């Protein structure tokens, strides 16, 4: 990952990209290059433009100015926030994965060959035997993995994930993170957005701090520094070392919040 690169080797290059919904720009002059094998976390506060940047990189939103260049034959997958999924939609795990191969003329039913491929991708993600189950009847981690499986089924070289650990407990969050690291080690390029600095971002090899524009980008030790974080989040932050890991803590004047206490004798 670099903030400026060439299309020759890069998978995706965002060059001074500005995206706006209406008059107000959401992201401004963003430069970002996604190289093969990257694992990038885009961090920033709510409303900083993380999801918008993901969609611009995917090609789902046209920039108002600047350009996003993708390698011509690049195959991408997108894993949405689980909060956005309609869990009452009548779709089984196999149907959910199979719908992703939607381009060109295809039969409605999943062919025997595709069934084998779906079983293989479900096996790979630890979802074997769950193909006929409704997506609602899965644990939080399994639900997240179904949408990863859908992205992988298309043969995606780059997978974008929007807040992949949102709403998950600590154990499941670690499972998802390890799974993404394994996929990355197998050659899948991963770009994700997250607001979870300590749970996710500090574990990633590359971080992009975003607040409408790129404040800092690089390895955690270069980016997770008080100056960059304060500029990104608009509040002073401190970095602690704990067991060889960097831990980000709020250092603002309101950082220490006392618990509510019942008045004695009230």
């Amino acid at each position: 990952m670099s903030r400026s690169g060439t299309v020759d080797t890069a998978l995706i290059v965002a060059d001074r990209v500005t995206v706006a919904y209406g008059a107000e720009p959401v992201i401004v002059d963003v430069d970002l290059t996604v190289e093969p094998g990257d694992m990038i976390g885009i961090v920033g506060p709510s409303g900083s433009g993380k999801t918008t940047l993901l969609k611009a990189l995917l090609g789902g939103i046209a920039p108002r100015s600047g350009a996003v260049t993708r390698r011509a034959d690049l195959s991408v997958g997108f894993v949405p926030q689980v909060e956005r999924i309609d869990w009452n939609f009548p779709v089984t795990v196999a149907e959910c994965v199979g719908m992703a191969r939607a381009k060109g003329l295809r039969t409605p039913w999943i062919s025997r060959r595709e069934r084998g491929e779906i079983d293989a991708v479900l096996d790979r993600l630890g979802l074997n035997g769950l193909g006929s189950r409704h997506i609602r009847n899965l644990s939080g981690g399994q639900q997240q993995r179904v949408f990863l499986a859908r992205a992988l089924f298309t043969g995606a070289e780059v997978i974008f994930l929007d807040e992949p650990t949102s709403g998950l407990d600590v154990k499941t969050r670690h499972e998802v993170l390890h799974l993404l690291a394994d996929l990355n080690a197998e050659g899948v390029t991963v770009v994700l957005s997250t607001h979870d600095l300590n749970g996710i971002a500090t574990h990633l090899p590359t971080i992009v701090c975003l607040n409408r524009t790129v404040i800092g980008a690089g390895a955690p030790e270069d980016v997770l520094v008080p100056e960059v974080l304060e500029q990104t989040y608009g509040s002073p932050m401190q970095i602690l070392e704990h067991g060889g890991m960097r831990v980000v803590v709020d250092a603002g004047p309101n950082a220490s919040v006392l618990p509510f206490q019942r008045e004695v004798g009230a």
Partner: protein
Amino acid sequence: MSWSELTAPYAFEFFRNGVYVATLAGALCGLVGCYVVLRNMSYIGHGLSHAIFGGYAAAGLIGVNLFLGAGVWGVVTALAIGGIVRRRPIGSDAAIGVVTTASFALGIALVSRYGSPGRSADSLLFGNVLGVTASDVWLVGAVSLVAVVFIFFAYRPLLFTTFDDEVAQATGVRTTLIDTLLMIVLSATVLATMNVMGVTLIAATLVVPAVVARMLTDSFSTMLVIATVLGAISGFIGMNLSYHHDLPSGSTIVLVGTAFFLLAYVAGGRLRRRAGTVAHAH
């Protein structure tokens, strides 16, 4: 009632045509209705049928082929609703309310002032088996064929767009084209079934079989099959009941569908309670 009494109306060509159309139309509405229900567009099915009534009346007035005029009007109405929602801060329900009721009101005004083109206003509004001709059978058959071919070849992009429009678009599915084609098929479905069902009841035939099917299965492909079969059965039984009890065909078909809904609702509740008991026991 004896078998000969039951089969007596089949001696009449108009009744046979009515049964063919009602069965086909029920199946067609059941199939297309799955997409309408899952896209939370139940109200647009209702609104579109009303809007098409306006187009039907206007086409008669200016001397254009009634079905062509009404069909084009329906598609334009659907696209206008989408355009208004995209360009103004108005919810789709409000946009549908404004555009389709305005079109319906225009239709009522034109029919009142200049008379109904082709068929009586009552049969257009409430459906009439006596008005069904062989050409209606061919029309519903042709629209059904087009709908089945469209859904067969666009099954996966349709499912992807219906389930998750944003991700489908982001990963290269031509969602605008899929949405537009679905609206054209929906408009053609409403138009073709208007004579039997009547404008005011078409929405129910689109929605009820799909809702019943949704209550019976968690699989999309199974839902399509159940809704299609249920729509056809409702149409067939409804047409026969309407003849023997001298009731309007549209309302009888809808009431049969509603009976299926009540059965599925009660059966679904019992199944859930039983499943809950089994799960609790484990």
